[in-house]
């Protein structure tokens, strides 16, 4: 492997992708999103954030789209019809090293632009009113059967809490024989608390929040105290523990890092398809693929829009399938295929 060719291709590719134009474009989009989010007169700071925060998620998609769209012009030797294919081929050197370099340059540019987006999002949030305090979110999973009758219980393993935390419970509601409109009454036995707390879910679909004090790890028990109201299940719903506050800059950086695998998927997909597709066809494919990727509900806990709306930051997680797909695309993208640049026929 020609490491010098790899490094040179990476440098040339990255320099093109992280140009002044790219930084300015991201800044312009951040500003535009911010202005759109604050265009309406909203009754409170919280509602202002609710309108503005999720919009910022669009900004986190921009680096991936930018790099995927510009990768081919940054290193124009990736596929049929590219201007540098012949120049590189006639050098008589291996094509794998520059392709690997171009992909590394693309990934490095992606990381740099994600950091830039995190800075822009932080700056915008600092400037705006109603900015909530971002907290680390831990997704918890309750155990037990559906709570349909009084006396039925579900349990929840709580990690050690070092400072004050809030537990958000979003149970799943079921249709049952009892009155659906009636509130659901529960008791919650919190570790290290002698007296159980009362919890009331007033409407069908309502969520509840509990304030938790500093405590060691333990089991929280939720017990239904009345038969009235619809059956609910915390095990089937979503439970999030909001713990330590995170500085805004770190929160945005964490969001950017969480979004990186999606952007990688897009960029490496572009690299892999560029081997076989012309630039025009590839652009059309990318335009189709991006909204599809954005709408896939595969990993909802990493949704930037929801985390911005809730002011929570989840721990980044990557499914092995996701990692495998990214690795496969990367390998595929580094394989150079020979493509004739003119039709021919031997007499």
């Amino acid at each position, binding site marked *: 492997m020609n490491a*010098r060719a790899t490094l*040179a291709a990476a440098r040339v590719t990255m320099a093109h992708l992280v140009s002044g134009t790219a930084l300015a474009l991201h800044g312009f989009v951040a500003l535009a999103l911010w202005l759109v989010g604050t265009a309406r007169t909203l009754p409170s700071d919280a509602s202002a954030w609710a309108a503005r925060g999720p919009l910022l998620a669009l900004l986190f998609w921009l680096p991936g789209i930018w790099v995927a769209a510009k990768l081919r012009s940054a290193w124009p030797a990736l596929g049929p019809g590219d201007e540098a294919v012949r120049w590189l081929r*006639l050098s*008589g*050197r291996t094509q794998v090293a520059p392709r690997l370099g171009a992909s590394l340059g693309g990934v490095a540019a992606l990381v740099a632009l994600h950091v830039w987006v995190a800075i822009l999002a932080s700056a915008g949030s600092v400037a705006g009113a109603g900015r909530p305090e971002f907290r680390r979110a831990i997704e918890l999973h309750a155990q037990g059967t559906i709570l349909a009758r009084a006396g039925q219980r579900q349990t929840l393993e709580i990690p050690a809490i070092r400072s004050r935390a809030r537990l958000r419970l979003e149970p799943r509601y079921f249709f049952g024989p009892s009155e659906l409109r009636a509130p659901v009454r529960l008791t919650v036995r919190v570790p290290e608390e002698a007296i159980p707390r009362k919890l009331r879910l007033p409407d069908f679909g309502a969520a509840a929040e509990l304030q938790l004090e500093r405590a060691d790890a333990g089991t929280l028990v939720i017990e239904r105290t009345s038969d009235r109201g619809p059956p609910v299940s915390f095990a089937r719903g979503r439970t999030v523990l909001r713990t330590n506050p995170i500085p805004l800059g770190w929160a945005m950086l964490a969001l950017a890092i969480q979004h990186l695998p999606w952007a990688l998927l897009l960029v490496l997909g572009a690299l892999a398809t560029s081997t076989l597709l012309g630039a025009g066809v590839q652009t059309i494919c990318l335009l189709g693929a991006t909204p599809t990727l954005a709408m896939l509900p595969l990993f909802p806990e990493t949704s930037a829009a929801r985390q911005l709306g809730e002011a929570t930051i989840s721990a980044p997680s990557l499914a092995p399938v996701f990692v495998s797909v990214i690795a496969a695309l990367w390998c595929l993208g580094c394989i150079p295929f020979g493509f004739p640049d003119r039709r021919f026929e031997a007499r």
Partner: protein
Amino acid sequence: MTATNDPIVLVQSLSLTYRSGFLGRRRLAALRDVDLRVDAGTLVGVVGPNGSGKSSLFRCLLGLEHPLAKQLAVHGKRPGARRSLVHLGYVSEGRLPLGRLTAREFLTLTGAIANRRPGDARARADTLLERVGLSQARDRAHAEFSTGMERRLAFANALFHEPQLLILDEPSSGMDPLGIEMVRTELIAHTARGGTAIVATHSLEALGPETFDELCVLLDGRVVTHGHPSEVLGIAGTRELRLTSVGEAAMPKIQRAIEALGGRVESDGPALRSLGSLLAEVQRRTKSSL
């Protein structure tokens, strides 16, 4: 670079047909039974009108086409084979890629692709840019270059890895006389070092037919004549003399002597040098005086 008895390029009965139109039913014979042998240390000019097959022949030698041939070898190998390409420098008719890079960056990238150390590559780039007359423009993006400057950069790119074989398609196209003189000088130096060059050109007069060891004339995809420039371009029954250190007073005597031998002097006047050589000399003088 050493000359050996094996030819650098050997082509026998080479034919190439392009297909176009609906289902490729329209055919165009670009090359027909072309024979060419290029030995080490020779400078071969390939000339002919537009569409005569010069570029197609070069594409076959580079392995960009798959023609029919009894024999087709470059450095004894199949054209397009990596081992033959690493000893080959090529100037194509088109512009160079990555126009946003400066001339120096582009050549340094060429060096990195050829696995040269960055310091070496930069030094080589600077030397070559000086040689092709682009040292003043080395930090400009080459997309901003004029056609002639771009050709100079393409020439420097072809020379970068000191190839044994140069295949140059219109290297002096769009160049000023100084550029043409530079190409001529570099080609002579290349062959003097034992290198080989095949050059397609419409500027044969500007480059000087005497620069070439052999000329190959293509017409409609066929080689119509091939040999030393004096054989290919010479007019039968005529001689051209160039006299030096002869005063005006001696000319009538020389003329009478020629007529006494049955010859005839058709023109008489001072020998003219090319504009390129004049400009090159002026440039050298200016540099030495600074």
